[in-house]
């Protein structure tokens, strides 16, 4: 083991560099995987060289790193076509397999600490982005796209339950659009607005007309218990940018936002990818039915403080995505007290139409308290997923509602980077102003949501599978832990793969939502029709039965 290391020390970094020089002229195909490892090696070499050179002939100091390198080389050789046996007990090699999935051209550029003769490095954002390609969510989705289920034309296809889309009322909305969109465009012209105001310079944070319509609509959904003010709103192209915008407004790079986990798998991308704000997960447990615990939040806050990390806000979805809980009234008051005491913000990411399955007095839409008198409103901000609530996921409208004027002003400026097409804004204004349609929509939406939720809950009960009895949302959060072969993330992913392969059902594994207990899965039922429920349940049953036989 020990004889080879010292040449390899110098050769690996050098070799990697030389390799680049040869490769970078040809366009794509022959860019070897060695580049990937090469770049990573460079990172390691610097400290390791320090160890070796700094201590001169100190054998002990170099044996370990050298051994590591020996294995590392083995790993690299394995990647070449004609290679020696693999095995890489290299401690940090855990993330190497995922690196090799990265599109080839990118490989060297961003793992290399220096530019030198290499292709100009892209940013760390690019590096981070392309790493996540390997996540189960996208893999599962690809399978679905290749072989999508259809009740008649492809009954054996993959059923997609992994996405969070609400398509319950797609038919209703589509019919409305067919009847009305043209009219709404033409109307603009008659009102002497040219192309509906599309030619003039834009109010980047949303047209006032739309804000008024949205405020009305929100009030209507909450049956008039709250009145929303259009002037306290910023509209963005989708909830993702609404969340990112608020994070840009509230936190500086290196500061943190507490997020109760399990949480929406997209949160990390939305909150921290471009802002460099940290996400600190605050685990919720199955013993509490995954309800938010203020004590846990306080612990996380104190730990962060000890590490010198400044927490700027708490963010969570309501009803919780993936779990489906609505926040308890009591918990909310405790949270409000907590944020006031610590001088931080509270951001809640809410659905209104899709929020309530049954009447329930202990849980609530937080939006309802925005009218209340007795707390500091400047630190509570709402994100409202309008397009999701409306079954219009592809129109992409997110709402930031805040009573803090300076944050609104900043958010309005940031909204420039993600403003909504005026075309869509006009359509939405017309749609939301059609009171008859909205009434029908709300009524039907509620009925279908409750029905689907019941069907799923009953289906799982029949299968003897526990699921959290959610109060709202478009998802079920189910416990398949008793079917895992090993009680670990690995076991969970095996289960996920099995469900995808044999049962052809794509669900989201809890680990993608940063759930600390393995075996939980999220299913979105709002993209299905009623008749599909039995199919889904049948498939899951078969998969489980097979598992038992083995």
């Amino acid at each position, binding site marked *: 083991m020990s004889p080879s290391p010292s040449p390899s020390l110098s050769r690996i970094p050098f070799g990697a560099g030389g390799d680049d020089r040869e490769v*970078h002229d040809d366009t794509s195909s022959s860019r070897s995987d060695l580049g990937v490892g090469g770049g990573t090696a460079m990172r390691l070499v610097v400290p390791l060289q320090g160890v070796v050179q700094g201590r001169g002939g100190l054998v002990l100091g170099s044996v370990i790193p050298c051994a590591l390198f020996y294995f590392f080389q083995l790993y690299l050789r394995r990647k070449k076509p004609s290679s020696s046996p693999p095995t890489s007990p290299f401690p940090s090699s855990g993330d190497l397999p995922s690196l090799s999935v990265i599109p080839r051209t990118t490989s060297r550029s961003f793992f290399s600490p220096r530019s030198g003769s290499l292709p100009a490095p892209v940013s760390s954002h690019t590096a981070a982005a392309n790493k996540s390609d390997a996540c189960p969510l996208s893999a599962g989705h690809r399978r679905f796209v290749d072989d999508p289920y259809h009740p008649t034309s492809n009954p054996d296809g993959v059923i997609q339950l992994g996405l969070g889309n609400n398509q319950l009322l797609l038919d209703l909305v589509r019919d409305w659009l067919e009847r009305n969109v043209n009219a709404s465009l033409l109307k603009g012209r008659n009102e002497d607005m040219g192309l509906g105001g599309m030619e003039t310079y834009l109010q980047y944070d949303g047209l006032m007309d739309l804000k008024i319509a949205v405020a009305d609509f929100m009030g209507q959904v909450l049956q008039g218990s709250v009145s929303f003010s259009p002037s306290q709103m910023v509209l963005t192209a989708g909830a*993702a940018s609404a969340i990112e915008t608020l994070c840009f407004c509230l936190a500086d790079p290196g500061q943190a936002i507490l997020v109760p986990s399990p949480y929406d798998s997209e949160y990390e991308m939305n909150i921290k990818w471009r*802002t460099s704000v940290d996400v600190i997960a605050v685990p919720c447990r199955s013993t509490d039915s995954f309800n938010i615990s203020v004590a846990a939040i306080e612990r996380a806050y104190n730990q962060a403080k000890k590490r010198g990390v400044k927490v700027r806000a708490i963010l969570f979805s309501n009803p919780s995505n993936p779990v489906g809980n609505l926040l308890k009234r009591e918990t909310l008051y405790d949270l409000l007290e907590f944020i006031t005491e610590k001088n931080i913000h509270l951001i809640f990411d809410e659905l209104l139409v899709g929020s309530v399955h049954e009447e329930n007095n202990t849980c609530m839409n937080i939006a309802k308290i925005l009218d209340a008198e007795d707390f500091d409103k400047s630190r509570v901000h709402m994100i409202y997923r309008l397009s999701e609530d409306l079954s219009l*996921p592809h129109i992409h409208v997110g709402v930031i509602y805040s009573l803090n004027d300076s944050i609104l002003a900043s958010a309005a400026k940031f909204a420039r980077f993600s403003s909504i097409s005026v075309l869509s804004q006009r359509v939405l204004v017309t749609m939301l102003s059609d009171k008859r349609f909205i009434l029908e929509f709300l009524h039907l939406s509620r009925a279908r949501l409750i029905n689907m939720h019941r069907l799923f809950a009953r289906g799982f009960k029949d299968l003897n599978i526990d699921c959290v009895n959610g109060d709202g949302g478009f998802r079920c959060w189910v416990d398949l832990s008793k079917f895992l072969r090993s009680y670990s993330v690995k076991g969970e992913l095996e289960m996920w793969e099995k469900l995808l392969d044999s049962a052809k059902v794509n669900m989201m594994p809890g680990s993608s939502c940063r759930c600390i207990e393995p075996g939980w899965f999220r299913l979105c039922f709002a993209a299905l029709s009623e008749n599909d429920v039995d199919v889904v349940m049948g498939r899951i049953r078969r998969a489980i039965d097979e598992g038992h036989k083995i």
Partner: protein
Amino acid sequence: MASGFQDEAAEHHLLSEMASNGGHGENNSLYFDGWKAYDRDPYHPTLNPHGIIQMGLAENQLCHDLMEEWIRNNPEASICTEEGVSCFKAVANFQDYHGLPFFREAVAKFMEKVRGGQVRFDPDRIVMSGGATGAQETLAFCLADPGDAFLIPVPYYPAFDRDFCWRTRARLLPIHCSSSNNFMITASALESAYQNAQKSNIRVKGILIVNPSNPLGTTIDKHSLQSLLRFANHRRIHLVCDEIFGGTVFGSTRFTSLSEALEADPSADRRLVHVVCSLSKDLGLPGFRVGVIYSYNDAVVACARKMSSFGMVSSQTQHFVGRMLADDDFTSKYLAENARRLRERHAVFAGGLRRVGIRCLEGNGGLFCWMDLRGLLKEATAEGEADLWRVIVGEVKLNVSPGSAFHCDEPGWFRICFANMDDETAERAVRRIRMFVEKKQMKKTMRWVDGLRLSLPRRFDLEDVALTPRLLSPQSPLVHATT
């Protein structure tokens, strides 16, 4: 009073540094001040004929009649009809940040057309983002880490400081260009900008150019593009070209895109090249928020595509735009007519100003003229320019944008936008400038006449002085003194 102050301090404490640092640049720029002035007192032909005419807005409103006609004739484009229904279901999923395939194909085809059919674009490399603003920011996020720099020829569009730098914390470093060679980018200026950055230990990640240039209204020739490419290759840095005004080239020479220069140079590393396009200027549809990144780098395409979830183009808009751009006859007719009208409008301004001896930089594209008022400055400094600007906004009632807002080194240049108004307003704007210049020159002449105790026929004076700025302009010693 005291408590009010405390409240404000506490409030600020609650905001991030970025949200309160004014990085949007709107608080201390004459560019934005001009807009605010316009908002307070906007011109209207009948309701407020003495209001300020907006000439600070680079928007293209000359061909909206064509657009409206098309919408009237193609009602199915704007709605989700039969064929729309299939798109409706298909796009309602997680991967929709790729954009509808036919939308990307139509955009690629349109981009090819704008570039005279000289290059081909691969629809799979087209990444959509929320307007050119979003596209710029996305590219900055993809290519630069905080503190990294891009080199940019001055003068440049003021909002780049916001779009490219504010949230990404990247920087822009100037490549100095001077009026002596019509603000062309020279190899030595480029090299010295790069060297300066090296000396200050700033990592240069790329060059950002705008072609046709905003505010100059000039295009960059193929030769210069190729030298820029060579430089980028030599230094292993990126070359980002903002071609959002590509469809507004109205001069006799054809628009040469960076892609064309790239095709002509097989030795260039394509992965360093990125192009930004948008429909806001070419088609005059800023409200649609359709910006496009075309990158030759796979990693950047993949990353930018993910980032497009922060600035989605709604599929309804994609549907509409896709239909419109796929209509070959319409786009051909539109581009030709657009160029013709822009040429005419440009002539109205350039010609009108020339008659009072005001020179504009010889432009062949864009929606603006780069107007040389150095002859009217009291003193050739930034303050002199700001004083003159105040007079133009406050008394002449035109919102023009001063060169200082564009980081121009030489005081006395102003950008005037000419495509965001109708013919009547344009005439009025030209008249206002001419009257102002004539009045100024008259005063000057009178002083001069008084001073020398000469008495010449008045008509002759005017003609004579009218020529003065032009004679002075290119080699004025004052100009050199300031650089």
